[in-house]
């Protein structure tokens, strides 16, 4: 069906079609509507979900963990301070290898208070062991939320699906939805790793492990994250074959013979596509590398792709406050370090607190990267 939906509406609709067993959530701008609309589906009897309205995001994630440990399909949504308040529980969900899927309408972190979109919240959670997907469009958000359920359940890892706050969460787009039945058939039944309530096979969940075992359990979790990449690729292929929409983990847009590319996550990819089209029309050799999966970091794909380009700008919609460049920049420079001939890589921080990032801004960045000259380590695009 073709519908006009905002990002939040589309994700709530996807959740309805996924029909999770349990949703526990607490509202926070700009993700509030996802759960609010979903609770309407619950009230109208359109889903079978046990809906748990809790008193905080910490409790929301805690309830999700409990439900997922019982082998159920579990979802939630949050943003910003809410994700920060969940921080402690994020690590627990991942360590217990629970495939919880969380929609995040990306938003800046206080202080000062700001409700608009940047990637501070999810990127601050990057070491918690969650898979992280950054979406460019509402359609991609809708599709990715559905895929993420299958990916998480196959990889036994929790997943964040991020859409940029307000830019995607509150803007309407034309999207193509799937049939309820198609979604349910695509997902099938979850095959949980364990079930705490299976009293015939009692288990202990969340044990204390000391110097003798903690490290081994962590090592095994790390391996789980490493093995998630083939799972992601497999499920995305499957989705593409069934429904005709395929999203590569890493997409090169008009990168053939490019002299300069930007590496971008989230909605700014669309902005950069416009700038690339304009510049290409003027005969400039520029392209876009869209990174859709931030965790696991796809270092081999990044290295193979980026090795081809002499000049690279890395776009971070978050600052790591006095780190050596933006968070994605430091990872990409590490990835490229062992190449015999390293490209020039520049760090750009843009769009904090929802600051507009226009095609003109993107053009300026492309011009600078093409020039191969930049004095400062990090350029803050559009700051006064």
């Amino acid at each position: 069906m073709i519908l006009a939906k905002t990002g939040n509406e589309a994700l709530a609709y996807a959740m309805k079609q996924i029909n999770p067993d349990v949703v526990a959530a607490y509202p926070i701008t700009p993700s509030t509507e996802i759960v609010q609309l979903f609770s309407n589906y619950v009230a109208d009897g359109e889903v079978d979900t046990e809906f748990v309205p809790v008193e905080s995001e910490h409790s929301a994630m805690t309830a999700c963990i409990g439900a997922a440990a019982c082998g159920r399909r579990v979802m939630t949504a949050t943003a910003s301070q809410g994700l920060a308040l969940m921080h402690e529980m994020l690590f627990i969900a991942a360590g217990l290898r629970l495939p919880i899927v969380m929609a995040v309408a990306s938003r800046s972190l206080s202080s000062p208070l700001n409700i608009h979109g940047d990637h501070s919240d999810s990127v601050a959670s990057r070491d918690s062991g969650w898979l992280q997907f950054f979406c460019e469009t509402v359609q991609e958000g809708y599709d990715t939320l559905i895929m993420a359920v299958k990916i998480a359940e196959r990889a036994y890892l929790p997943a964040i699906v991020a859409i940029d706050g307000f830019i995607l969460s509150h803007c309407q787009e034309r999207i193509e939805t799937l049939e309820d039945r198609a979604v349910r058939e695509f997902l099938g039944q979850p095959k949980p790793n364990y079930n705490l309530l299976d009293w015939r096979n009692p288990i202990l969940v969340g044990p204390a492990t000391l110097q003798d075992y903690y490290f081994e359990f962590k090592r095994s979790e790390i391996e789980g994250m490493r093995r998630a990449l083939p799972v992601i690729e497999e499920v995305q292929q499957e989705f593409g074959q069934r429904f005709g929409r395929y999203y590569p983990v890493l997409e090169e847009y008009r990168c053939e013979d490019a002299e300069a590319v930007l590496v971008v996550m989230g909605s700014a990819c669309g902005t950069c596509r416009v700038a690339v089209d304009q510049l290409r029309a003027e005969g400039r050799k520029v392209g876009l590398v869209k990174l859709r999966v931030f965790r696991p970091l796809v270092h081999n794909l990044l290295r193979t792709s980026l090795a081809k380009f002499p000049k690279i700008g890395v776009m971070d919609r978050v600052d790591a406050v006095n780190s050596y460049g933006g968070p994605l920049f430091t990872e990409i420079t590490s990835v490229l370090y062992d190449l015999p001939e390293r490209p020039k890589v520049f760090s750009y921080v843009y769009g904090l607190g929802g600051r507009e990032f226009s095609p003109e801004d993107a053009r300026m960045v492309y011009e600078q990267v093409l020039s191969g000259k930049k004095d400062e380590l990090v350029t803050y695009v559009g700051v006064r």
Partner: protein
Amino acid sequence: MARKLKGWQELPCGAIISDLQAVKENKTGAWRSLRPVWNNEKCRQCLLCWIYCPDSAILIQDGKVVGIDYDYCKGCGICAGICPAKAIEMEKEKK
């Protein structure tokens, strides 16, 4: 008897423990500072303490509470709090 330590590839996904013998060997009652004392006279055998105890430390025989397993009771006091008959009292552990 000392067990051979397992490598990471031999461990269950998600750090679950299904070897309950290993769980039994860890006497989690060792660091208790308060001790629940159960009073048979006052007890109404409603079994609420058994349901709520997070460490399965309420001892049951033939469907009835018969005492508290101090090897595993960590002294949280949940049983005393939930008991409608005030049949469990928390006392300071003697050093």
